[in-house]
């Protein structure tokens, strides 16, 4: 059975991804002592008995809503999952405006052209799903080929080992 397990798009709120985003930060920043003291104070705060753990957990959960969605350059499954997510286009455009009249006008226009925009967005969504299928098929094939290459490398190493033990076989 083809592996259809969806890769999880990487959210930059998890520790690993956060490190990935932060790795370009400069090392030699001024006031390193103050920074270290602040980080220690933060650590100490979390150890306090009155530390609001539940609330901070809630804050962390909320941060996931704003997480940057990216796929690592070598992670084709994550890239496909991202493509799938981005393909879910919406026909309803935002109608916000500082000017109430403009907001109303936008609502009227949105309603008037909805049948056309919706038709287009359905097709874009279908295109997205088709592209996702291509991506999944490619990922599947690449993974099969990678497994085959690995298997062949293992056999080659085994043959090399045998040849080293008995040179008359070469």
């Amino acid at each position, binding site marked *: 059975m083809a592996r259809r397990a969806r890769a999880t798009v990487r959210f930059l709120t998890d520790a690993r991804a956060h490190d990935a985003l932060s790795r370009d930060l400069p090392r030699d920043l001024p006031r390193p002592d103050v920074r270290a003291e602040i980080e220690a104070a933060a650590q100490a705060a979390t150890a306090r008995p009155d530390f609001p753990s539940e*609330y901070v957990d809630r804050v962390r959960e909320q*941060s996931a809503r704003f997480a940057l969605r*990216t796929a690592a350059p070598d992670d084709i499954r994550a890239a496909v999952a991202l493509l799938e997510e981005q393909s879910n286009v919406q026909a309803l455009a935002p109608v916000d405006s500082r000017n109430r009249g403009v907001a109303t006008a936008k609502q009227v226009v949105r309603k008037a052209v909805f049948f056309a925009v919706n038709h287009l967005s359905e097709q874009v969504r279908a295109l997205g799903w088709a592209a996702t299928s291509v991506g999944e098929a490619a990922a599947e094939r690449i993974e099969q080929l990678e497994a085959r290459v690995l298997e062949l490398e293992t056999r080659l190493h085994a043959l090399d080992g045998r040849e080293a033990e008995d040179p008359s076989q070469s």
Partner: protein
Amino acid sequence: MTEVHQFLPTFAGRDAIGMHTLRLRKLLRDAGFDSDIYAVDIHEDVRAQARPASGFRNRPRATDDAWILYHFSIGHQLFDQVRELDVPIALDYHNVTDAKFFWRWEPRAATTMLEGRRQLAVAAPSVRFALADSEFNEREIIDLGCEHTAVAPILIDFTDYDTPPDATLLAERQRTRAQGGSDWLSVGRVAPNKCQHDVMLAFAVYRRIYDPRARLTLVGGQSAGLYWRALHTLAEDLGIAGAVTFTDVVSHAQLLAYYRTTDVFVLLSEHEGFNVPVLEAMHFDVPVVAFAASAVPDTVGDAGILLTDKSPVVVAAAAERLRSDALLRTSLVESGRKRVEHFSIARTGPHMLDALTRLMKESS
């Protein structure tokens, strides 16, 4: 007379690049260059200060000794059109925001950012030279193949901030402050790359751990409607809606009132090409806590607390340290004044002019 004309897609008098462009034109004219500003979208407040880009070929006093300085911060067809003119082009590179920050909130903006990166990659090796607001920007433009470069920061005239603040707003905020609780301030377009959500998350934790009466003001217009709405929902969900003010666009006098009634300036942006507001905060003796990403360390220097971890508990601890440590606060304020002096137009103006004339000569 040598002509050095500035081009930019949108010319607005009140944004950092718009003001920089006006100041640079004055510098150029004072130095004896013939200099005008050309743009596609010219805002009403500066209508008389610029010419339509389409009129460049028929400009008055045209000579064979003309240069174009293109302010690059976003993708725009104007850049392709400018490249077709038979005039040497230089860039003033303000950086292009990474599209990844905008895809889920404002895809149209993301597209212009991608287009900007494409145009830049193609053009960087062929432009005569590039000025960059910061070392961060300069590294990017060098990596793209531009051979002649110099760092020349955005021109800021800090005397503009010595005008009276909005008296009503100032009085109102002073009344609120008299009741206790510290004030956090973050200034800048409300945009996903600027991560105002991280500021709110840290602020929520700060109120819970250190100062339940603290207030946060987010000054800046919206650039992505969905993100703007998500921030309002976040404030509700975290129970801090009553303590967070979204000002949207403010007048200059209102901005001054906000700076004058603030305890800490917080910037947790992931992507900046320079960032003027941190220097504004320093001008008003407001201590700065910032995330050390992109060009932020270049601008902040040693005059702020630069964090490498912006998890809410760490940012909250940094703000609390500033509240409780008067010595540190004084040290930061003093360093801030020096930083403002470092970026004053009295220094950066001649530096920019020197860089510009030197690079024009070297790349001719």
